[in-house]
Each structure stands twice: as C-alpha cells, then as structure tokens.
C-alpha cells in the first residue's frame, strides 16, 4: 500500500499509455461538454483521490465530498503542464482533507473519528475474514489516534512522503514529525497486539 514520491509524480502507474488520451486532453474535451471524457478522467484518478481523502479524514462522506471537489477544480483548472496534473490532483485532495481535519478538530466534534462498523475491506471479497478483521482493526486504531499523529502517520505510511515534506505540510519540525509517528506507532502497537494474523498471512 505504501507509495513513493515517484509513483505520485507519475500518477501511480496510471499514466496514459499508447493510444489513450492524455489527462489534459480528457479535461479539455470535458470542458467542452464531453461528459464521457470527464467520466474517464474520474475513473483514472478518482480511486486514488478518494482513498487519500478517506485515509486522512477517516470519513467516507467527507472523502466523497473532497473527491468531488477535486474533480470540479480539475475541470476549472487552467490548463497546466501534463506532467504535474496527477501530482496536483493528490496535493489538492490532501490539502482539502487536512483542512477538513483541522476544522473538525476546531469544532471539537471529535478528536478521534471512528466510522460505524463499515467494513473497509468490503471492496475485496477475496480477502479472508481475518484479513478484513485486521483491515477494520487497523482503520479503527488509526481513527483513534490524535489528529496530528494520524496525519503524520497517514502521510508517511500511505502517501509515502518523507519527514521533511511532512514537516512542511503540517507546519512543524522534522523532529516533531518523527515524534508523532513514533507515538502513533506505540499506540497502534498496543491496539493491534494479539490480533490473529496467521490466517491473514496464509490467505
């Protein structure tokens, strides 16, 4: 699941191959009213955008809202250079998600946001029961982390960013990022201790 910065730049291997219209071409067509072109663009990037927003907010409705917003902004975006579009999409998704987390924290709705027991692994019917349980346990344990720790952990683990970049995004020092990840990992270790992984490993 971990991604690296190179994958981010190239759009996670989803860069259009031979014969496929490029992202900008799809967006141009969409701007002229070609809805099918826009759906293809959304199919190409929606998955990654949605999951970035979901992992950072741990809220499916918010993630859907953010994914819609990112796609709309892409449609309204000034035509830029092709290479940066994929990276731009995920940066916008990440910023919107982090802003949503901050305002949620300000509203004190919940320092820890736990979705009702919606199975995250429902998308993958082939996953074993133990695999789904571990997936839910991980999601739930991450949801229980304090917001700053969760943001740091998700950015390093699921977005594949380095400590300097994360420090820049979260507005703290590199040492603070390491400390947040370290504390998050300690809490996750306790939360996931004793979870049966044997079945999951054989699946």
């Amino acid at each position, binding site marked *: 699941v971990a991604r690296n910065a190179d994958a981010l730049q190239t759009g996670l291997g989803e860069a259009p191959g031979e014969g496929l219209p490029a992202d900008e071409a799809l967006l141009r067509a969409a701007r002229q009213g070609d809805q099918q072109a826009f759906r293809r663009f*959304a199919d190409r990037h929606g998955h990654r955008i949605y999951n970035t927003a979901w992992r950072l907010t741990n809220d499916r409705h918010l993630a859907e809202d953010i994914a819609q917003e990112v796609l709309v902004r892409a449609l309204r975006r000034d035509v830029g250079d092709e290479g940066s579009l994929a990276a731009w999409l995920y940066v916008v998704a990440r910023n919107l998600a982090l802003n949503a987390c901050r305002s949620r924290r300000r509203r004190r709705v919940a320092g820890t946001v736990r979705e009702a027991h919606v199975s995250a692994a429902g998308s993958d019917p082939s996953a074993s029961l133990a695999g789904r349980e571990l997936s839910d346990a991980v999601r739930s344990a991450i949801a229980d982390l304090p917001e700053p720790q969760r943001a740091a952990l998700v950015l390093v683990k699921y977005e594949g960013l380095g400590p300097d970049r994360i420090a820049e995004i979260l507005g703290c020092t590199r040492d603070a990022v*390491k400390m947040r990840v370290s504390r998050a990992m300690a809490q996750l*270790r306790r939360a996931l201790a004793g979870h049966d992984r044997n079945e999951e490993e054989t699946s």
Partner: protein
Amino acid sequence: MSACDRWRDSLDAYVADMLDPNERVELERHLADCPACRRAVEASRQTWSDLDAWQDAPPPAGLADAALNRHASRGRIFRIAWPAVAAAGVALAFAAWSWYRPADRPTPAPLVHGGRQVEVSEADRAVIEHLDLLEEMPMLAEFDLVRRVDMLRTLDRLGLVEASAEEKRL
C-alpha cells in the same frame, strides 16, 4: 543515559525510514549489539506491516456525475451573476469617473490682489474668469431686443397683438 534510552524514540522512525543516513548507520551499529532493541524493532516492523491491511476502498459510484452536477450548479450561479456583476462594474466605473473628473481639470492659478493671495469660491472665480463677457453685455441685450421685436411683429401679423404700441414700450 544508556544507549537504549538514546535510541528508544527513534526505533519507529527507523522502521518508517525517517532517519538521516548518519543516524541510521549509528542505530544499526547499536542494534548489532543490542537484542532488546532488535526485538523492539521487530515489534515495530510487525505493526508497520499490519498497517498494509487497510485496503483501498472503491470510490462511490457516480462520483464523476456528482462532480459534474456540482460543476454545473456553480456554472449556473456564474451565469446568473455575470450580468449583475457587469452592471455593478459599469455603475462603479461611472461613479469613479464622476468622482475623479473634477480633479482632472487643471488647477486654476491662485488669484493675487494687492500682493496677497485671495480666497474665492468656485462661483466667484467663474464670474471673475469670464469678466470679458460683461463687456459684451450691451451687445447681447441689443440682440435680445431685436429677437423680441421680431417675435412681436410675427404675432402682429397673426393679429394677436398691436405690435407698434408694444414696440414703443420696448
């Protein structure tokens, strides 16, 4: 402070690949000699790989269409708003032009009388600056008289007034 104490907070960062190269080398040297820290790193690695279990979820169906609707609804707002924005812009531009126009006039030279600068109102200044017109006043009055006599004669022809009597009066 023991070596283990020094590294305790860095073990997770090591597993997460967040250490500087120098720190990493130093920690690995310590790990080679310290079974307790090696066990802690192993536990951290287990947790780190457990996190891979959080699988991606498919985006909700109809995401693109929902985005298109959102885009269209904003477009409508803009379509309604543009004429109003344009009208407001024109009004503002006119107001600004009206406001600034007097400033565009050249500032009249200060009036000096008896070696002193004299404060005069705008209206007074207009009269003073057009004094030459006063000299033309008799001629203008003459013109006016001719025009009125002319009108009387016209009325006389129509039988409406007795022009000669009125002409005498004028």
